[in-house]
């Protein structure tokens, strides 16, 4: 049995006084798609940052494919698709420029693109069906195309783990289906994918497993079971309301 793709073990993170993650543990096996469900402030973004090594946890450990996060990063193993609000869509870069940024880890001091780099970028663009949009400024893509452009960056990078933060926000139903299909293909090729999302309807088609997060991992299992109303109520704090109504 190979090492799990992502192994988060008893990780605790504080921001000052505020507790973001409380002894959270999560293991995802290779080539699986795992959906991360929780309300705003439940620690989803923090969990991503811990996996990427941007935040050092106060306690606990993270291993990526059996390695430390920093080693996995240097090998280009971790791809990241940011939330739409985090991106400056006016930035003067073309789609090709952005996807090429996935190759920087493989390039020399000045990041000069080689033939192999260019080929990898073209291949990634074709894979996400954006071949015809390579020259566009990134802000001139639709919501779904923007997401696919960043997925292409992860593909060009050769990422074996892909983290997607709210990939369905601001995306229409058709693009959602395209992205879902694309991610399923990547998983079939061996990529491990962690997706945080508010869009619960998309989860069963997309994910092999789902996680309910509320500072700690409340539940981890098949999407159908995790999405049971009583389980969701637990993660979204509705049980408190219900109890109040009953009392």
């Amino acid at each position, binding site marked *: 049995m190979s090492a799990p793709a992502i192994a988060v073990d008893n990780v605790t993170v504080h921001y000052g006084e505020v507790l973001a993650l409380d002894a959270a543990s999560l293991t995802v096996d290779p080539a699986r798609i795992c959906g991360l469900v929780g309300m705003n402030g439940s620690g989803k973004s923090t969990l991503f940052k811990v996996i990427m090594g941007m935040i050092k946890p106060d306690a606990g450990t993270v291993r990526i494919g059996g390695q430390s996060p920093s080693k996995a990063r240097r090998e*280009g193993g971790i791809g990241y698709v*940011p939330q739409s609000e985090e991106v400056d869509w006016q*930035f*003067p870069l073309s789609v090709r420029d952005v996807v090429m940024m996935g190759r920087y880890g493989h390039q020399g001091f000045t990041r000069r693109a080689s033939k192999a780099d260019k080929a990898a970028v073209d291949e990634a663009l074709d894979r996400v069906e954006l071949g015809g949009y390579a020259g566009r400024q990134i802000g001139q893509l639709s919501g779904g195309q923007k997401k696919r452009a960043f997925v292409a960056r992860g593909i060009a990078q050769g990422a074996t783990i892909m983290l997607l933060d709210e990939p369905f926000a601001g995306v229409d139903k058709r693009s959602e289906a395209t992205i879902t299909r694309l991610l399923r293909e990547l998983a079939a090729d061996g990529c491990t994918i962690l997706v945080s999302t508010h869009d619960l309807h998309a989860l069963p088609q997309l994910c092999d497993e789902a996680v309910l997060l509320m500072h700690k991992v409340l539940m981890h299992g098949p999407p159908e079971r995790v999405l049971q109303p009583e389980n969701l109520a637990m993660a979204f704090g509705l049980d408190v309301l219900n109890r109040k109504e009953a009392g």
Partner: protein
Amino acid sequence: MELLLEPLSYDFMVRAIVTTALAAVVCAVLSCWLVLIGWSLMGDAVSHAVLPGVVLAYIVGAPFALGALVFALIAVTLIGVVRNTSRVKEDAAIGIVFSSLFALGLVLISVTPSQTDLNHIIFGNLLGVSIPDLIQVLVLGVVAFAILILKRRDLTLYAFDPTHAHAIGLSPQRLGALLLGLLALTSVVALQTVGVVLVVAMLIIPGATAYLLTDRFSRMLVIAPVVSAACSITGIYLSYYLDTASGAMVVLTQGVVFAVVYLFSPRQGLIGTRLAKARRRKAAVLAAA
């Protein structure tokens, strides 16, 4: 032709033009990142905060650049400390730190015997650039320019998506520090020409102008220095014939060019986009007829 050549018969004019063009190019290249990251105020702050460093370097006879770098670092650290450890917001922290350091510089100048040289640092003294000044600007300018161009892709990645930079094993902190260091270095280069007070114009206007003209960063890196150098040389000629302050004239020219681009840029301009729309409508009507 006579008008263009006459000033060149004076050595001091030639030196002024060379120094300004060089400073304009380096500042303009750096400004492309500053306007995109939203560091304009930081550019303002660092360019003012280096003043005490330059004065102290003058007093002890050290290179200006060294004093400037030290104080740029002090300024950035202080801004970070004030912002992170009190409820004061970043813009206020920047304002407090840079104006205090600038004032410290002014105080140091007032107690330093030979005042003539140092007052030039504040308002610039383009027409009084000496050969050693020119050499210093040349060396620092070339170093800053070379680093900016060689590391341009990393700096752009840092400006656009620092999280991705981190995810592929680069250090956003280090890239940010590199950019700040280059900002300090470039400030010293520009001090000579337009002076502390107007450096910030050279560090912001060219990038902003280029940003209105293109949506490719690689083209911004060409447009900004070319426009900036052209403006600077034009500004010097104007100041020669109109007998006005040269540094201020350079900045004024940059401002006027920005205004023109702001109004008439075909992509982003206030009037330019409307004209383009009208032309398209007319073409459509003609095609239909």
